[in-house]
């Protein structure tokens, strides 16, 4: 039993480190089609912010890319008309899929 405990602890600790390491590589999937999004999946998408509604700290943005438009939510502001790279989780609000932003960065300040 003593040996099994050691083995369990070692596999558990090493495994958790390995999974945390994997999150850096596997966490975000490039969105290739807005019609084929999976709920709760982590995704990455690039596009232009064409609408921004701010409610205090919280904002609802509309992102447009070649495939269409999707709503994204974040605690951020002043992204209107900027080209951004968004990383986040696909969530659902009122039967509409949206991206809950974990990271957003500006790629270009102005229109393409």
């Amino acid at each position: 039993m003593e040996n099994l405990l050691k083995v369990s602890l070692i596999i558990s600790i090493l495994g958790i480190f390995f999974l945390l390491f994997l999150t850096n590589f596997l966490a975000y999937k490039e969105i290739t089609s807005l019609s084929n999004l999976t709920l709760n999946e982590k995704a990455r998408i690039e596009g232009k912010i064409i609408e921004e509604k701010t409610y205090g700290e919280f904002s609802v943005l509309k992102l447009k890319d070649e495939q269409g438009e999707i709503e994204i939510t974040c605690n951020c502001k002043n992204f209107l008309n900027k080209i951004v790279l968004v990383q986040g989780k696909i969530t659902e609000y009122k039967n509409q899929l949206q991206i809950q932003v974990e990271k957003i960065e500006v790629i270009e300040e102005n229109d393409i």
Partner: protein
Amino acid sequence: MIFEFLALFLGVIAGTITGLIPGIHINLVAIFLVSSSAFFLKFTSPLSLAIFIVSMSITHTFLDFIPSILLGAPDEDTSLSILPGHELLLKGRGYEAIIYTLYGSIIAIPIILLFTPLFIFILPKIFFYLKFIMFFILVFISSYLIIREENKLLAFLIFLLSGFLGLATLNLSLKESLLPLLTGLFGSSSLITSIIKKEKIPKQKILNFKKIKPKIREIKNSIIATILASPLCSFLPALGSSQAAVIGSDMTKEKNKKEFLILLGSINTIVMGLSFVTLYSIQATRTGSAVAVQKILENFTPNNLIIILATIIFSSILASFLTIFLARFFSKNVSRINYKYLSMAVLIFLAVVVFIFSNFLGLLIFIIATFTGLAAILLKVRRTNLMGCLMLPSILLYLPI
């Protein structure tokens, strides 16, 4: 009307099947139903489908103690029942243990009805403020569960290990990420322990149902503990029935196995029942079944709520009889089978289910979670600390910065 009744009966049958399959959580079935709801809605109305989900889910909460006690293969809601339940099983009293959880599930029904008006009128008023103190509530509950352990350091280690495992799992793009995580932490780890210990299940005593009577005092204590603890996990994220049961049993200072099993049964059913009420009152979905009902019923009217409450009552009556019958049947036969081989078969079955739903990555998480669960068992740390896998990510989510 005929279709609604048919949906109720079919739901009870489906809930019986899902409840008896070891390690399968009702959330998994609910997710499958949501994804295939477009297909089912061709043949039936949204309300009938919602009735089917509610009666299936309630029946599931009655029956899922049968595999968790007899086979040691719980889902996350029944994970704590293994300890007192398994102890009674090894004394030939597994049937009795299941019946105590049934008493709990039956007690749950009037409590759900009692809480319904409170959840409708009071919860919406306080829920907004609760969100701001959620972080502190979660930290307090986690600390409380660790502090009550004999070896606090080891309990903290297990909490952290499972917490980081949960964080990594939830941050990976994985379908049904909770399935490998919780099945590994709670299900397969206890199955492996049974296989290693070469446990033999003695012949089970099948008492007459009327003879398995908890004392009035035991029922009273369980009701008080349920009333104190179950609202906690009805709207707090990450807090499962097991944690609520531990808190409830501590609040009422009860240490009796019977009372604990009654408490687990009642909380398991209450959390499910009240999740439909919280869906109505604050539009929060605390269970997978509530998510499914939300998606299927676009407008949740007061009439719908009354029908759902009636479904809860009727399906629980049917589920009670089914539990008595099936618990008797399986308890009679459990000693005849080779427990080691059965545990192995269940273990393989769980691994296959994980692989089908969550792929290779899911299987990897399942293996790591199994060893984390094993470490907790071998270190003699209560497995409720393994719920750190959901508590820690929730604490970080509500971190007030």
